[in-house]
């Protein structure tokens, strides 16, 4: 069978199930964000939900484009794409706006973009394109080295912002792509060793921090002094005090000397109190009352809001939705007609999965709290846009699996 799909006829070959799932999730996100920023009938709601709707509009256009243009055509522009992404990452370090302690935004408030989101797509293309070259010997050390260089460069730039979460999510993505591409297992053992060493270093660091913080806690008269002394510590350790605390709280939820475990605790209360059927839209109180802090409710903790108001029923639907998208991604990878498509689909699926797992996991106490948003549901223009583009590329690969 040999046929060529025009940019128009490709839409006849979409996976309607995953398209509908995507639309359902972004649709739900507008309602969820409305509720997450809701403060009561007589208080004007923050415009986040409107902004999200606009970004979804932009995302839909980009989605159409990402489906229409043959991914192999895009593949030919890989290095341009990657260079632009790296360039943006450099620009943001110089000209970016600082928000929540990270210089990760370009442009004006509300309409700004996060270059790190697009860097994910850039890196997926770079790795997929490089590894899918038929002349590439996956078993050679050179291949590995170049892959690691591509990965390391991007990760380093994102870490400089610093945006630990976005940087960290790139590691499993690259690892999965290289694994599928056939990088020998022995390198993975090497990677495991590296991870183990890093882990050991982090662990000793953590113990040191913990001892110090315990000592401060005992000797500080109040929370303010305690916090101040902890903040002064930050240069001595690899992670920042709040990051250590997140890990410590995750390991021991009871540990909460001065409210560091607040978000986790409140998120769990929100999720748990939702019960089976939830309290109904706009009926949740955790965010309205500020127990779930207003800054995080619409983005990092949107799932808690959904869980409180929609209960286990809604959470189950959301999980099924992500399962549909992820399984469709995996199936696309399996069915892709070429290696480029297969690796692209793998990378996209794994990034998506990492976001879903880490975000939901942190709201329910399975994973330490990290600032990773939930794909399609969390408030955030760049992330909605990049996720929809990524899903468009998946559809693109899927639709063209049987064509030349």
């Amino acid at each position, binding site marked *: 069978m040999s046929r060529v799909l025009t940019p128009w006829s490709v839409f006849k070959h979409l996976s309607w199930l995953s398209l509908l799932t995507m639309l359902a999730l972004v649709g739900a996100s507008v309602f969820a964000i409305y509720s997450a920023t809701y403060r009561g009938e007589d208080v004007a709601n923050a415009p986040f939900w409107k902004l999200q709707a606009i970004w979804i509009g932009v995302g839909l256009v980009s989605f159409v484009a990402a489906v229409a243009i043959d991914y192999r055509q895009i593949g030919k522009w890989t290095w341009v794409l990657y260079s632009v992404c790296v360039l943006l990452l450099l620009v943001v370090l110089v000209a970016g706006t600082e928000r929540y302690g990270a210089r990760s935004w370009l442009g004006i408030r509300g309409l700004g973009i996060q270059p790190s989101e697009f860097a994910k797509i850039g890196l997926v293309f770079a790795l997929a394109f490089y590894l899918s070259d038929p002349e590439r010997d996956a078993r050679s050390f050179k291949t590995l080295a170049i892959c690691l260089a591509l990965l390391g460069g991007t990760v380093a730039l994102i870490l400089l912002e610093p945006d630990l979460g976005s940087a960290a999510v790139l590691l499993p993505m690259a690892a999965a792509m290289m694994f599928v*591409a056939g990088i020998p297992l022995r390198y993975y053992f090497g990677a495991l060793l590296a991870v183990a060493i890093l882990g050991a270093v982090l662990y000793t660091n953590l113990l040191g921090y913990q001892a110090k913080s315990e000592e401060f806690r005992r000797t500080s008269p109040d929370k*303010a002094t305690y916090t101040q002394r902890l903040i002064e510590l930050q240069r001595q350790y690899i992670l920042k005090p709040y990051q250590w605390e997140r890990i410590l709280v995750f390991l021991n939820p009871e540990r909460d000397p001065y409210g560091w475990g607040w978000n986790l605790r409140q998120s769990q209360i929100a999720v*748990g109190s939702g019960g089976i059927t939830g309290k109904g839209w706009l009926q949740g109180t955790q965010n309205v009352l500020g*127990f779930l802090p207003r800054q995080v409710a619409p983005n990092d903790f949107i799932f808690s809001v959904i869980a409180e108001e929609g209960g*286990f029923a809604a*959470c189950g639907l959301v999980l099924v939705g992500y*399962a549909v998208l*992820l399984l469709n991604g995996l199936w696309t990878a399996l069915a892709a007609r070429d290696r480029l498509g297969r690796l692209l689909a793998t990378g996209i699926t794994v990034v998506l999965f990492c976001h879903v797992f880490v975000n*939901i996991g942190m709201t329910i106490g399975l994973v330490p709290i990290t600032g990773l948003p939930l794909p399609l549901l969390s408030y955030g223009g760049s992330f909605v846009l990049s996720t929809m583009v990524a899903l468009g590329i998946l559809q693109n690969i899927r639709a063209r699996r049987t064509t030349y």
Partner: protein
Amino acid sequence: MRRIWQEIFRREEGRLMLLGLAIVGCLFMLATQLFQLQVVQSAEFGASQERQSQRLVEIPAVRGLIYDRNGICLADSRPSFDAVIYLEELSDEWRERVRQEIRRHGKRLEPGRREQLLAELVREKAGAFGRLIGVQPQLDERAIRIHASELRPLPLILFPDLNETAVAIANEHYPLPTGMAIEVNPVRRYGFKSGDQTYPLAAHSLGYVTRSKPTLELDQSLPTFTQAEVRGVSGLEMKFDRELRGRTGSRTILINARGYKERELGVQPPQPGHDLVLALDARCQQAAEQALGEHIGAAVVIDPNNGDVLALASNPTFDPNKFIPHVRREEMDALMKDPSKPLANRAVSEQYAPGSTFKLVVALAGLDSGKLSSASAAFCSGEVQVGGQLKKCWIKSKGGQHGAVNLRSAIVHSCNIFFYEHGMDIGMGPIVAMAKQFHLGERTGVPLPREARGHLPDLTRRHRPAETANIAIGQGEVDTTPLQMACVTAAIANGGTVIAPRLVKSIHQQNRDGGIGTAVEEFPPRELGRLTVRPQLMELVRKAMLGVVQDADGTGKKAGVPGVEVAGKTGTAQVMDTQANIIGHRAWFVSFAPYKNPKYALAIMLEDGDSGGQTAAPVAGKIYAHLFGVSQTKDTATKPQRRPLALARGGRH
């Protein structure tokens, strides 16, 4: 096996499948944990959410009123206008100050500085308002801090109980500064209006209330803010606290993470307390209190037909209004240290040797057992040898003797010799048995705290004749309360029916339109039993009692009032210290009137009297004069009626 794994790892599809398995496994983990939280542990999390975001704020109920038998109000509530501040409503201004402070210093604030800023803000507002009404605010920073951190939904009282001028000024300067308000709170008021004077009546019976501080109680199902709670701590206010207090209502409020009220979830309205209608007659009570004058003692007036306690007076008394809104330590200490013990209810809670008034019981015991008759006689030479002890008649100290006495003259002249001799003849057993028929030695069950039991000789022990002789004149191992003696008198007055004193007649629903509402509980008169003494024998004693007052040489003639046949019995008990030296006298007078169809039975006991006839009988006389309206003193009490104030309940929230 190894081959299969190798095969899987060798092929791209195989590796993808492994990846897929890992992903599906992780999604399954998420679903499991969600199930755990939302289905298995849901109730737990729901409860902790309620606990952290919901609070109960109590709404106190309107306390019931206390009326006398004629519907005259003795205890009600007056409105107290308090200038209060709601710290919640200061949050914007407070935040602004904190922001300014941070801007000024460019650094984070020192610990505790935020709270200090709030206290400053409150003090400024209070100061400005205080200058307006001309009152210096008394605020301590610690109190403000505690209120801010623990009692935020409750108003903080800045100026309690403003006077009319201050309220008027505040009303003119409406609206008040943000967060401030004038609130109306009920304050207990005790008073009986007579003429143009109002003074507290029956303080010992009514008792008083105290107001506790508002608190945050955490050991409830939901953390609960209790408002200042008014609680009866003495007298009827204490005994009927539950009925008077009603049921506290509550508002359920939703608070946000910073502890500020977000909105109200529901209201459980309070149920107003019930009113008490007493058997007490305000005018009779007033007469009794006035008759006691400067004496230290008690006066009890009972209706012998049904046991209604018409007056229950103890002197010196106190002003319970001074304990309102709450008992101040200095005030209480002064009263506690006062040697005249103003807080003691001498009519009920203290017991005294009844002296010669007990001869009535002895005489009835003799008549009932047949050891005494109207013909019984004795010769009083002023003294007699009893068991090797020389015992005297009181007449001896006046330099005389009674000579030949019979039962009647022994009662009329209160001859001790007659009762020494016949008392020993009757014996301890019958005397105590008769006292028990009168229910002496046990509590009358009047609903007042700390009622004294009184005391009767212990029959399990053998008594020496001298002890029996002593008991026969009401000294030694016998003690009674004035209320008990009033009951004894009532039983003799009505011909032998022993009745329990009734202080509270009924409990009524509160009536918002004023007046007394429908009864929810009535306390009928309670008959305790009938004396076994035959009526004609009883009549001998009653006749002798009439002689005590009406005879020209009767010991109690000072109790007489013109136109009324008054019967009575005097009593003077010696008070001895540990060395058996006489250090004072208890003057008693028990009495009933009119002789035919008695309407009043009373008992007077004075701790500082010379003798029953000289000191106590005149007190009874004054009370009778008032009750029968025959006195020269002008009767001012033309049934004064005081309507209870309709209180506007706290207008806010």
